[in-house]
């Protein structure tokens, strides 16, 4: 698949603390698409998002936004045009929902209060059409905090949504709705709007993901348009007598007494000649797990006698 432009381009992004190092020599987030940043806990997803949104300004590297702004602080427009939905306490805990609305409207010229209320209502944010809700942010559930941030971001004119684990605190129905909201956001942008979100619930976000970046230990270890990745990798299943041979061909493997199942680079499939195998087109979840397995520090095969 080819695309034409990046919404954010990064070069030599680098940040270390303690034993952890985030190192991304090249970053290209395609414009007009939904990009998922996938990885284990601690892989560095939030660090990267915080660098991109300007929540963390102590990283090295160059970032270009919307094809022309050099750095997140280079022009007010950059932050105006990015809607951020984060995991932490983005809104202060003692703010009431009414104050959230007022403060967002002070901070962002394009904020549309009517739209904010309409979205809050549509997401059933316990709103009941009242703008003077005294409820404090700290009293909201994690799911409702995400909804509140969605309202704040979607009620503005933006070119890009950046979301840190938006699906995690949401219930299954709301996750479904979130995917719809992202698709609608992209549709109404007609190629000019993009979404970038981190997730470890790949399956929940798969139906909306166009481009995937898989991160392990501070590095992007695989990336590409999902339809291309699904052709690059293939699932192979076979009998136990072939397990030993398959181990050398497969990118990642699960074994049992009954046989093996694994993910293989599609262009190595011919090496299975003579073995009795079945193949399947992988999902993004299959690919992500395989890539993560190949790079993880987790000891996956050890039996722990528990």
């Amino acid at each position: 698949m080819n695309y034409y432009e990046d919404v954010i381009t990064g070069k030599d992004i680098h940040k270390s603390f303690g034993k952890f190092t985030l190192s991304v020599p090249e970053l290209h987030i395609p414009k007009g698409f939904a990009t998922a940043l996938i990885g284990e806990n601690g892989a560095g997803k939030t660090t990267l998002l915080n660098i991109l949104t300007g929540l963390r300004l102590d990283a090295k590297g160059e970032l270009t936004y919307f094809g022309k702004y050099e750095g997140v602080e280079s022009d007010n427009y950059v932050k105006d045009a990015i809607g951020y939905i984060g995991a932490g306490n983005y809104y202060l805990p003692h703010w009431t929902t009414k104050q959230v609305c007022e403060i967002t409207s002070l901070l962002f010229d394009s904020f549309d209060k009517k739209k904010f209320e309409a979205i809050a209502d549509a997401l059933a944010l316990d709103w009941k059409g009242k703008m003077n809700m005294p409820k404090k942010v700290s009293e909201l559930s994690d799911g409702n905090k995400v909804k509140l941030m969605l309202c704040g971001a979607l009620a503005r004119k933006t070119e890009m949504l950046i979301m840190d684990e938006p699906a995690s605190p949401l219930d299954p129905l709301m996750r479904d709705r979130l995917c719809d909201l992202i698709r609608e956001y992209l549709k109404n942008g007609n190629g000019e709007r993009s979404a970038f979100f981190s997730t470890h619930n790949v399956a929940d976000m798969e139906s909306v993901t166009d481009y995937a970046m898989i991160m392990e230990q501070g590095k992007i270890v695989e990336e590409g348009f999902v339809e291309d990745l699904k052709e690059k990798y293939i699932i192979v299943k076979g009998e136990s007598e072939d397990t030993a041979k398959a181990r050398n061909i497969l990118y990642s493997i699960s074994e049992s007494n009954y046989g093996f199942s694994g993910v293989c680079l599609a262009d190595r499939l011919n090496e299975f000649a003579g073995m009795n195998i079945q193949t399947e087109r992988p999902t993004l979840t299959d690919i992500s797990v395989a890539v993560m397995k190949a790079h993880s520090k987790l000891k996956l095969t050890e039996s722990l006698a528990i």
Partner: protein
Amino acid sequence: MVILQNSGVPIYLQIAEQMKADIISGKIKQNEYLPSIRGLAKDLRISVITTMKAYDELAEEGYVTAVQGKGYLVNPQDTEMMREQHLRRVEDGLTDAIKAAKLAGIGSEELKNMLEVLLEDDQ
């Protein structure tokens, strides 16, 4: 349009096949644009890239032409040529069947009978 998530057929192919049928039947008209990729993705609740791949498939096979900045335009369909293409596909399928029958030692009478039975089943 019906999209099955677990049919084993990739979603982009399901879309491409159904659109081809609609183009051939005239349900989607010549010289019109297909729905926008992001609009169709939203309506079918799938990703933009899957829709793009479906449209690219149609473009590759000559059903539509990508017009930069505007979308995918349905090409005038040469019905004679399309019939020719379908004929070739049928011939290929039958040739495969004959080869397989030979390998299994199935005679031509038996093969013809099989075809008759299958045709009846299909009706």
